[in-house]
């Protein structure tokens, strides 16, 4: 506590304020630094279950198959935000041995009357299995373009790393196809039923 506040307080204040502003700027930066840090954390730990898990065929072939264990892999498919695609796994689940290379297919068809490019985003439950679920071939490695009415089967070749902890006996692999044209999502369209205060009973769900 300085003894003569009226005299030195101006400089003292300037110093304190400068320090505070530095904290503010630092924390604003910290928010943005979270973006790469969070990505890094997720790819190291598999926390959000969405690393692509891509490996080379040769690597996959070198792993020893553990015939004593069976892991059930379930397949799931979702379309994001009313993407007009038909999208489903051709089988619901398979049993595999860790280390064994397995190939399955997904069926996809574009029901819209215009071409659409979409990207499949993987998700693995439980997420702890993410870093043990390796793929040598996946339709999620690149964007998929479908002409109007076009349909096709897409391959997925995977191998479960034998290092997968024993307690995980079922893994659910889930894909969500997302339209790469995001502008349609940001609907700025008109919503006529909103323009009266006492309102129609249909919820607006054209999202």
């Amino acid at each position: 506590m300085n003894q003569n506040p009226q005299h030195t307080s101006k400089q003292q204040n300037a110093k304190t304020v400068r320090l505070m502003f530095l904290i503010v700027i630092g924390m604003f930066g910290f928010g943005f630094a979270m973006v790469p840090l969070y990505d890094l954390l997720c790819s190291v730990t598999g926390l959000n279950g969405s690393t692509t898990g891509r490996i080379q065929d040769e690597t996959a072939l070198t792993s020893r198959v553990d015939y004593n264990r069976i892991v059930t892999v379930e397949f799931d498919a979702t379309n994001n935000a009313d993407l007009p695609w038909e999208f489903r796994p051709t089988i619901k689940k398979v049993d595999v041995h860790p280390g064994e290379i397995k190939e399955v297919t997904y069926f996809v068809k574009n029901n819209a009357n215009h071409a659409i490019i979409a990207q499949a985003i993987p998700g693995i439950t439980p997420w702890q299995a993410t870093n043990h679920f390796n793929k040598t071939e996946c339709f999620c490695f690149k964007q998929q373009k479908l002409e109007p009415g076009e349909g096709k089967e897409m391959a997925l070749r995977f191998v479960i790393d034998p290092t997968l902890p024993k307690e995980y006996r079922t893994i659910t692999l889930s894909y969500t196809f997302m339209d790469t044209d995001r502008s349609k999502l940001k609907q700025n369209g008109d919503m006529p039923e909103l323009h009266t205060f006492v309102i129609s009973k249909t919820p607006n769900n054209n999202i």
Partner: protein
Amino acid sequence: MSAVIHEDHHHDGPPAGFKRWLYSTNHKDIGTMYLIFALVMLFIGGGMAMIIRAELFMPGIQIVNPDLYNNLLTDHALIMIFGMVMPAAAGMANWMIPMMIGAPDMALPRMNNMSFWLLPAAAILLLSSLLVQFIPGTGVPINTGWTLYPPLSVQTGMGMDLLIFSVHLLGISSIMASINIVTTILNMRAPGMPFMKMPLFVWAWLFTGLLLIIVMPVLAGGVTMLLFDRHFGTSFFDAAGGGDPVLFQHLFWFFGHPEVYVLLLPSIGVLGLVIPTFSRKPLFGYKPLVFFMGFLFALGLVVWAHHQYTIGMSLGATTYFMIGTILISIPIGLMLFNFIFTMWRGSLTFETPMLFGIAIILMFAFAGVTGVMLAVVPADLQYHDSYFVVAHFHYALIPGAVFGLYAGVFYWLPKWTGHMYNEKQGKIFFWWTTLSFNLTFFPQHFSGLAGMPRRIVDYNIQYIEFNQISSIGGFLFGLSHLLFLYIIIKTVKGGEKAADKPWEGAQIGTPGLEWTLPSPPPFHSFTTPPQIK
């Protein structure tokens, strides 16, 4: 002391007309403007709550459509938090802190002016974000809730852009106000007012200000990314482009959890003055109480993900956040014990501020109990996003923050206006508002436990009774505030002359210097630093 006061009369009074307010750099005038702004926002946000409760009186959709309902819900929360509680607390800080610590004004009077005047601008943006939906072609209303989670918040219409700008302005305003308050407390104390003699309210605001300086910029960054995702093709939160919506949740709650202490602490500060005053005993354990606030400040920064238990975190992370959150209830509980022990064997009187003080201790403790229930992960997986959470945070925020401010209003009205409020009316207001508050929110514990989800316009008929009780309570609660307004206006206009020391008990313990000034205090006070005996 009186020599100092005489000297003050040589200074100019306030400038005349609108310039007094528009260009004001006087901490008392700015404090008054903050308080009036908060009062206006209380009624706007309260009006929204009335529409919400009217809609929920019956299942089905009667008054507002689902999107408008959710927009009102979003704005109700944002207005009450950013427009009401924070400005009211800042108004009290402006008025009281310089007088308490013997400073002539705030450290940065011009910045003070700007931090206030950003608020009306932000409020206009916020309200236009609600109204813009009635213009054709502006897209979907803001139907996200105050947490603004993407992907929904990326997909809503133009209202969201206005809201994001409003949040920016609110953030800048409160950062500047906090810097000002912290600087004032650190540098402007009169000689003989060391840290450990500061009134508790000043301590509480020191921590509040520091919290805001640390977390507000993170929220600003988060909503800026949202804006970029909406308009500039970035994918911070869009999985299609490699982003992750959960990242926004982390950024939001890194701000959002400390924010609840921002709302709480100023009111704890008021309690730390009111309880000793009307118990006529010094605050029990002043130093530990300051320490507990510091502990709350530090721990509060690192437990944010208890709002996100359901996103699928690792066992380690969940356990950490659970233990951290449960630990928080320890300093909170100890603070309440400090207040209880202050009352122990005191000679208590029950003026309106004290009634609020005691009610806060009782009801806020209840929020602490439901808080610990929510902190426990397996239980929270059931309670999350149900009315149980709504009940929890209304018990935390209305007693913990709002009633603390009401206690402050009644405690300081005599000092601010020079008039005593009508004690009888104050007590009627207290009982009316406290009973109707409980009538409104207590049943929500039950509907929540029975599974009623929050943020949905319609509900299953099994919840009818709980909701009708809530709605009736809500209307009564809303109505009680007309009496509040009436009391305030009447006290400002006139009434019994208040003494310079209207509460004789306020001199005990660690009093501020505000009681050495007349009621109302002169326009400029402590232009030369006071001598403390």
